[in-house]
């Protein structure tokens, strides 16, 4: 278990605005993803944990061992931290063969068993055949496997990964995800992975921390975070939500109902505890949870008719842009059949209207 509480300040200088990291989170067994936009302090956090940089405040505990405690002046050098670090660019030593890379890492292990350990890992990561080659003589996938094997040589207590899949093509990316699953199951090393890729976070994360502007905005499983973003910032970052400024017009706890007004449109939601009539709130509704059909005949009660302003298509879905900035996601085939319609009927299922 890795317990992190960190502060680091950068005062504004020249054309760079100041930045303050103030984050507290835990990393347990399995894969923990630190998710955030670029500039949110993710890589800085990883550097502070690995010992490449000194925090201004806070402490880091790894399996009850104190790595950093600013209060008492404890600051272990990276060498003594037991933190494996995987770099985006692999950082294999270019002047050594793959085997030498592993063997060099093994020099900090007891002499007995070094050789066996290196051979085991080369075998385990299918590198034995090419172990005599230099990193620039092997493929990107092999380099990646080698850098992971090298990090595991010293049996780290936690593995830190800095945007490891950036720049990988789809095949390599999936191979990499399989390796990460092996690290979790076979080697049982907790992993802390930094990424700004939501899909990756969902594939890999057992636990996820959302970092925005140097602060943890939300922690939980990816599913939990998607179901109930803690703030507009998180919802915005996930990029899957509509955020609608609205006013609470009616609250009925008995019938578990409420009425909200957004842009002269009345929406029907569930009862919101701890809210008052007249409260101005942000309604957060997922793009793919709004039901949308081309307008046929007269509008039904409780539905909303809007004009399609624009549409954009991705590999699997179409994004429909309506007046007021509302975006709805629709399977591509469904949109293809109806793309000529300009008037659409929208329905907001009651349970999908979350309030932030």
């Amino acid at each position: 278990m890795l317990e992190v509480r960190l502060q680091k300040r950068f005062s504004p200088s020249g054309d760079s605005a100041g930045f303050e990291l103030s984050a507290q989170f835990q990393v347990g067994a399995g894969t923990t993803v630190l998710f955030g936009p670029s500039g949110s302090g993710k890589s800085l956090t990883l550097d502070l944990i690995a010992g490449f940089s000194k925090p201004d405040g806070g402490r880091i505990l790894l399996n009850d061992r104190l790595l950093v405690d600013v209060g008492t002046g404890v600051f272990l050098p990276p060498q003594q931290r037991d933190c494996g670090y995987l770099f985006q660019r692999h950082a294999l030593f270019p002047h050594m063969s793959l085997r030498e890379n592993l063997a060099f890492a093994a020099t900090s292990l007891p002499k007995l068993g070094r050789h066996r350990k290196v051979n085991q890992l080369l075998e385990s990561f299918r590198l034995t055949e090419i172990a005599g080659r230099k990193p620039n003589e092997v493929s990107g996938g092999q380099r990646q496997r080698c850098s992971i094997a090298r990090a595991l040589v010293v049996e780290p207590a936690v593995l830190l990964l800095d945007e490891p899949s950036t720049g990988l093509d789809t095949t390599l990316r999936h191979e990499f995800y399989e390796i990460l699953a092996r690290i979790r199951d076979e080697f049982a090393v907790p992993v802390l992975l930094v990424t700004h890729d939501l899909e990756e976070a969902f594939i890999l994360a057992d636990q996820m921390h959302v970092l925005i502007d140097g602060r943890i905005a939300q922690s939980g499983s990816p599913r939990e975070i998607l179901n109930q973003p803690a703030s507009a910032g998180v919802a915005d970052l996930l990029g899957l939500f509509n955020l609608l400024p609205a006013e609470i017009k009616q609250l009925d706890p008995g019938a578990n109902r409420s009425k909200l007004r957004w842009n002269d449109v009345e929406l029907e939601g569930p009862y919101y505890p701890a809210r008052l009539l007249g409260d101005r709130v942000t309604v957060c509704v997922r793009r793919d949870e709004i039901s949308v059909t081309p307008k046929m005949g007269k509008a039904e009660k409780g539905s909303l008719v809007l004009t399609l302003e624009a549409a954009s298509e991705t590999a699997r879905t179409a994004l429909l842009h309506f007046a007021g900035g509302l975006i709805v996601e629709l399977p591509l085939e469904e949109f293809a059949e109806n793309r000529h319609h300009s008037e659409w009927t929208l329905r907001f299922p009651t349970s999908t209207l979350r309030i932030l």
Partner: protein
Amino acid sequence: MDYFPLVLSLEVAIAATAISLVIALLAAWALSFLEFRGKDLLDAAITLPLVLPPTVLGYYLLIVLGRESWLGQAWESLTGSPLVFTPKAAVIAAIVHSAPLLTKYLRAAIESVDPIYIKAARSLGLPEWMIYLRVVLPLCQRAIAASAVLAFARSLGDFGVTIMIAGNIPGKTQTLSVAIYDAVESGNASLARTLVLIVSAIGLLVVWVANRMNPPQALRS
């Protein structure tokens, strides 16, 4: 023609380059990798010989290494002969002339190594000295070799410090550059011309070799 000054100069330059290399590798490591009090002062002290007049440096060295000095006497009691006005003093003069510049070159070379390799090695638990010897230095070995070649050329060319602490004793401490001065002073123009051409040829060769050794960009990943 007497080849003694040429042979002595080459011997002095080889010895001085070897010793300078060791000094510069240590100094460059300290300046690039260690954090300690007085680091700026060390940096300034290493730069000082590059800006002070050679006669001033020579004067200091005479005080520190002369027969009256503590170090000079220790040397004399240890080896039975004085240090100043010997070929060894010429080596010291050449070191003072070349080590500061070599330190600057090496520092630039080792700081050009991509820090990602150093971070990777640290996270693998490897001690700092091992990272320096087995990661940093091999990754900039061509730049180090090029710097050493330039340092060799510089050791070959010292005049001021050499004449102050090694003197101008023909057949004993008279190096090439001192011999040229001596030849000009005594009106031996043809000897001066020959020696000047030899020194120029060596200098040209050395610069050409050093340029060919420029470190390849590939090492910077």
